[in-house]
Every structure is written in C-alpha cells, then in structure tokens.
C-alpha cells in the first residue's frame, strides 16, 4: 500500500447543499476523507453536522452537489447503497441501533440475518460462531453466556461497542462515528480510541464527530469546522484551538461599538454555595446580583442548563445551598421557584414552553392563573389585557391576544415566552439559550427588555454558547468549562479574545 499522502480520497463531497423548505442547513460543503486518517467534524448545535452525516449515510438522498466514492459519483443514495459502498455509521443514539428483546449474539449478527445466504432456519446455536467472530474483531472478550443474554443486560458502553463491532464486521471503508463517547467512561473511551487507532492502521477512513476538543486533540489527523451549514475552517495537526473555537462560534468582527452601558449591581440577589454542576467536578460558589445581566457562556455540556434548571428547581441541585435575598432558597420543583419570583425561559421552546393550539393570552397567563382566577373562574378580561400587554411590550407581531402560538414565527414565540415572565415581575429571570432560532430583530428586542428588567432591579441570567450574544447584552460574563467557572468578569474588563481563550482551554 502507498502512504496516505499519495492516496486518493475514499469519499469526497463536492459542493454539497441541503435545505428544508426555505431553511438552508448546508451550503457548498466540499471535503475529502482519506484512507487511514481520522478526520474530526466539529460544530455547535445546529451547525449542520447531523444533516451532513445523514447525507453521507444515504438518509437524505435529495441534496445539492455530489458525493463521490473512489472518484465515482453516487447516484440515488440510500442507507443500503451507502453501506454497500462501504460507508458505515454508528449513530449517537444507541437506541437507534440496538434491538431490544434480542440477544447480544443476534444483535451482533443482525446485518447477516436478512441475507438470503443465511437460510430460513434460525437458532442461537447457528449464529453463535459468527457472533463470536464479530465480537473478537473488537477483542470484546464476551463469553457465550454473555452472547446469549438479552442485549439490554449490557451496559450502555458495551452496547455502544456492540454497534461498533457490528459496523466493523461490514469491513467499512469509511466509518462515521457520531459523538461516540457520550455514553462512555474514561477507560472505555481509551478502549474506543485504541480501536479507532487500529482501524486507521488498517486503512479505514474515520469521520469523527464530536464537540470534545480534547478527544479530537488526541485522535484526529485533521479537522473541519462547520457553522451555519458552511465549512469555516480546515486544519491538520497541530491544531490551533483558539481559531477552532472562533470558527465554531462565529468570527463577527466585533467592534461595532457596544451599545450597552454597563450596569453593575451591588446587592447579591441569588447566592449559590457549594453547588455541583457536574457530578465529578468541584463544587462552585456563584453570586448573581440584582441590577445586572449576567451572561453564562460555555460550550455544549459545560453545565449551563444544569445551572438554569437547578436554580429553577426543575432539576434541583443534589449538592449545595442557595439563598435568595439572604433567605434560604431550596426549590424542589418549578412551582417553589415561581412562588419566590424566580423564573426560567427554558432552552427548548417547543418542547418545554409552548402549548400547541393555545392562544397568546392563555400561554401568557398559565403560570399566574391563581392571581387571574382568585376564586377559580378565570377573569377573561384580565387575561386578555395581560396578553395584549405582552404583545405591546415585546412588540409581538400577531393579530391579537387570541393568535395561536403555533402560528407565530420563532422570534415571536420567544417574545411571548419571555413576555409571560416579565408580566409576573421576576426577581430572578434565567434564560437558557434565549436567542437560538430567533431572528435578529427579536434578539435585539428581547435583549433590550432584559436590560430594562435589570435596571428595574431584577437579576437576569442569560445562558448562551454564542460569544456575540453575550457581549451584546450582558454586563458580566461567567465562562463555564466542564462544570467549573473559569472566569468571572465585567464586560468592560475583558475582550472577545479572552473569552474565547478561556472557553477553549481544554479541561
């Protein structure tokens, strides 16, 4: 075999694009994956990674541009064709691959079961030798007794390895691994890495999707950064992590002068003491002050949502205490928090905040029904007024307070969700990724309201993984890396570069 440098790409993408309706999720993506190399694919949520994987594995056959395998264009791709061409994928969700109720052995040989050569007769004894063979490929060391067990008796990590073994048995030419370590322990990650290294030696091309920079640092030969459906950066070893994070988060040159006047609060509104954001990470003390907007920034999995849900009581902290204006504050559920004026705008608008088929007025009044219906009967006049207040205050584009929330644009939905809590006079308002999937106009409008709210004496906490969102609307910035506060500064004391540097420090 020739060395990697002289080899031709196994799979190459030429100008691949994809749109769902009017929403372009990939545009002009071109890249090549070579044999015997590990290429990392990096991108924030919504960057287009999953779409790209699905195009490669044949799930989305109708895309723009071209996929070539060994230089030959692939026509009418399908999951079957992709596999026949040697492109195999281990998906992030294990449940998508493992078949419950079947034995480990059956799961291992599953791809062979449908082949005509398998014949009609099925017995566990018949497939055991084959299953042993497949398991041996990964040196899983599973005894016949384990092979006979129901697959769900395996741990998550072993299930992950089972899927990998199954893919390897198909002799892949390119293996796509989508966040393969999310379920694995440190030791198992090491084992997985050994497997990937030996695959590389055998000449397999690996496309490794992850947002853990440290994993990519140990494993990858080259990397590609995707943002908003476009390739923003390609690097080979040695990697420059600053540039990588910058490319992930957006390289807006930000000296369009800061429009905000920094406000600093003096009085501590909410104090966290000894709170663990991640199970195995050190406990944290964090203060949030009234009168300022605190931005909490970190990559996916840094602990932002844990912080938000803990403060709101949606997933109470297991360790540590909180005080609200000096008084003990231990919300066991969101109801406790709402009673004390601590509100949350959750991360996933449609799953966690919107009620399908509900009008703006009803959506807005839901958390405050006991005050709008003191004796049980909902006062429709007061409810409508509150709906109209939110529409006016947040400049929601709607026909009226009876407009259904499902029929609003994403930005206007978010205005309603934020406005609902503003109408309830928050002492602490936490917003988890409030600007995701929200147009620039709504973002500016909401941001403006949050500054007013802080000026009126509330403590506002904005979680985001976007540096510019934070810089444009916050007074103070906490950088969170892997459950730990890495830096805590006011916005005038730091720069965009410093923030990115803190975020990109490998834990």
């Amino acid at each position: 075999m020739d060395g990697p440098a002289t080899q031709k790409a196994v799979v190459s993408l030429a100008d691949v694009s994809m749109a769902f309706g009017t929403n372009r999720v990939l545009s002009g993506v071109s890249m090549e994956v070579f044999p015997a190399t590990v290429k990392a694919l990096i991108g924030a949520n919504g960057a287009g990674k999953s779409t790209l994987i699905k195009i490669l594995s044949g799930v989305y056959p109708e895309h723009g541009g071209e996929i070539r395998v060994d230089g030959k264009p692939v026509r009418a791709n399908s999951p079957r064709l992709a596999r026949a061409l040697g492109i195999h994928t281990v998906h992030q969700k294990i449940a998508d691959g493992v078949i419950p109720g079947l034995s480990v052995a059956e799961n291992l040989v599953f791809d062979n079961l449908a082949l005509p050569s398998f014949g009609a007769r099925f017995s566990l004894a018949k497939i055991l030798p084959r299953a042993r063979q497949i398991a041996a490929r990964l040196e899983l060391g599973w005894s016949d007794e384990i092979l006979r067990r129901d697959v769900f008796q395996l741990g998550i990590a072993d299930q992950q390895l089972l899927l990998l073994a199954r893919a390897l048995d198909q002799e892949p030419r390119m293996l796509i691994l989508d966040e393969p370590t999310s379920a694995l322990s440190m030791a198992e990650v090491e084992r997985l890495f050994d497997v990937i290294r030996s695959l590389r030696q055998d000449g397999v091309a690996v496309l490794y999707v992850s947002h853990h920079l440290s994993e990519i640092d140990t494993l990858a030969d080259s990397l590609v950064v995707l943002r908003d459906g476009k390739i923003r950066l390609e690097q080979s070893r040695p990697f420059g992590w600053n540039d990588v994070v910058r490319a992930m988060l957006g390289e807006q040159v930000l000296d369009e002068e800061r429009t905000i006047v920094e406000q600093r609060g003096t009085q501590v509104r909410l104090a966290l003491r000894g709170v663990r954001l991640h199970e195995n990470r050190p406990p944290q003390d964090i203060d949030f002050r009234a009168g300022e907007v605190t931005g909490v920034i970190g990559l996916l999995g840094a602990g932002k949502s844990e912080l938000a849900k803990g403060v709101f009581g949606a997933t109470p902290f297991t360790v540590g205490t909180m005080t609200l204006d000096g008084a003990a504050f231990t919300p066991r559920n969101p109801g406790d928090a709402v009673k004390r004026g601590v509100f949350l705008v959750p991360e996933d608008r449609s799953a966690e905040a919107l009620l399908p088929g509900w009008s703006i007025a009803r959506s807005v009044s839901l958390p405050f029904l006991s005050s709008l219906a003191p004796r049980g009967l909902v006062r429709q006049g007061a409810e409508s007024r509150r709906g109209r207040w939110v529409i006016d205050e947040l400049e929601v584009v709607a026909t009226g307070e009876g407009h259904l929330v499902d029929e609003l644009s994403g930005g206007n939905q978010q205005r309603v969700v934020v406005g609902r809590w503003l109408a309830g006079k928050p002492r602490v308002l936490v917003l988890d990724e409030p600007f995701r999937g929200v147009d620039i106009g709504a973002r500016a409008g909401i941001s403006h309201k949050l500054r007013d709210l802080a000026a009126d004496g509330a403590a506002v906490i904005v979680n985001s993984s976007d540096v510019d969102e934070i810089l444009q609307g916050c007074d103070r910035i906490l950088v969170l890396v892997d459950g730990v506060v890495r830096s805590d500064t006011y916005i005038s004391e730091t720069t965009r570069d410093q923030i990115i540097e803190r975020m990109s420090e490998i834990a």
Partner: protein
Amino acid sequence: MEARIGKTPAAEASVPMAEQVREFVVRYGVIAITIFLIVFFVATEDTFRKSTTLLSVLKYASVIAIGGLGVTTAMVVGGIDLSIGGVAGMAVTISAMTMVIYNQIGIIAIVAVLISGAFVGLVNAFLIVRLRIPDMLATLAVMFVVQGAKLIFVNGQSVSSGMPLPDGSFAIGHFTPEFLAIDAGFVGPIPMPVMILIVITLAMWVFLTRTRWGRILYAIGANPEATRLAGISVSRYRALAYVVAGLLAAVAGLILSSRIGQGDISAGNSLLLDSVAVALVGMSVMGLNLPNAWGTTLGAILLGTLVTGLTIAAVPYYAQDVVKGLVLVVALIFSFTLSRKKARYVSAV
C-alpha cells in the same frame, strides 16, 4: 408565480370551495349526522315521533354521557380511564347493598357510592402518577379489580329485596322511593336523569373551560413538561382528573342503579365502550379536536338516537353495534383525517 396561476376564476373559486366544504364537515359533521338521524327516524318510524321517545333517547343518553364525561376528563390530561364501566357497576352493587342489605336510606347509598367512586379515582391516580404505570394499563387493571371486588361482597349474586343472606336471615331493605326517583322522577316536564345530565354537562363545561383548574388540565394534555416548567404541580392535577372521572362514573352508576331497581351484577358492563366512543365522537364536535364536555354529551345523544331508532326499526342489537362502530369511524375521520388541527389523542402504552 403561484398567485398568478391562481388568478383564473375557476381555480380561484374551486380551491376555497373544497376548503369550505372540508371546514364545514369538520366543524358540523357530527351535529349534522345527529340531526339527519333524528329527521330520518321521525320521517320513517311512527313511534319515534312521540315525545316520550325523545325523552327516552335523552334518558338513555344520560348514563353514557356522564360516563363519557368521566372519560373526557381523563382524556383532557392526555390519558384515558378504562375503569369507568367497572366503577359504575360497582356503584350499582354498593347502592343496592347499602339500601337492601344494610337497610339504609337512599341518601346514604348516594354518599357511599360517591365516596367509592372518588376512592377508585384516587387509586387510579396513585398508579398512574406515583407508580408511573401508563394510564391505559393502570385503569384496565383497576377495572378488573373493581369488577371482581364487587362480586366478592355479594358472593357473586345480584342484590334484591327479600334475598336470603349468608346468616340465614333475609334482606329486609329495599330501594327507597327517593333513590328510585333519581331515574324515575321529574323536574317539571323533564325527567330527573336528563336534568342531572344537563346540570353535569354545564358544570363540567364551566369547570373545564372557565376555571383555572380546567385550564391547567388542558395545559397538561397539551404539553406536560411546559406545564411543569410554568410552575404547576402536574401530578396533583392529573390526580384530580382521575378523581373527577371516578366521581362521574359513580354518578352514572347511581342513575343506572335507580333505573334497574336492584343490584344487578352485570350492570355497567357495556358502559365503558360506549363512554369511550362518545368521548371520541365528542372530540370532533365543532372541529375542536379536543376532548370537551358539550361534544361528549352530544355524542351520547347521537348514540341514543341511533340505538333507539334502530331498536324501533327492529334492527337486531348485534347489527346495531356495526352501525355504532361506523359512526365512530366517521367521527374519527373528521378529527384525524379531515381536520387541519392536529388531533390529540395520546396514550402511552
């Protein structure tokens, strides 16, 4: 581009026309079928024209409608209650035991029945909310328990006045006149069960759509996680829904018991399926595509009309089931196929 193509008069008129028809069918389909059936039976069957027939349709509908309102309440929170028929049957036996065996007055029987209905509702709530058993499975299990338990109390026998008791004596009590009046009485010209139905439908409508509790029940049905994150105790309100469902089933059982006038052990057996059917038919009324009180009652009236009319027309009971099923299919087509609103019927199994 598309707008320009649409400018041809024919195309412009025809598209909204089809849309209008669809919209009309989705909104008024069930109501139209009910009116059509009434007109049809009035035109073809002499007996159906009598005013007593109309009242007997409504009396027949009352039990099913009240049971259906129980199912509706569980459906509002995104669940279902299959123990409705069992609870109603149990109510028949408990009321008979209270009056006939223990020789108590009617009001005590009523209280005992209501308590037992609420209790079964609490058991359902405990299984579903606390032990996290899917609603359909939990209430199915409870249905069996309730049906069997009532037979244990009475040694598998129907309760009637003068029946021999295990200790050798005879049951001296009887269904009291005020209890029998639950079904046989009148308020002015209106039969008592019809009056009860009107009051309960009105009360459930107000409860579900005008009070904060009802609002929260619908919120849970629409998105339980969003409701929880609005600071609401979802468990407590889901429990409330099952207790209300149990109470309504008990009321249906009271009317049934008063109608039969003895502790018939097979009473209530067919109520469950009818109740679920009318609650489903009710979802499509006015194109709401949500479980709702008026819809369920109208669904029961539709069913009552159908059964009464077909009986008068001497259609055998087993053929009536075919017709019932077809009407249900048509209503489901309105809700799930024709409606643009996504019909919500969630049941985690």
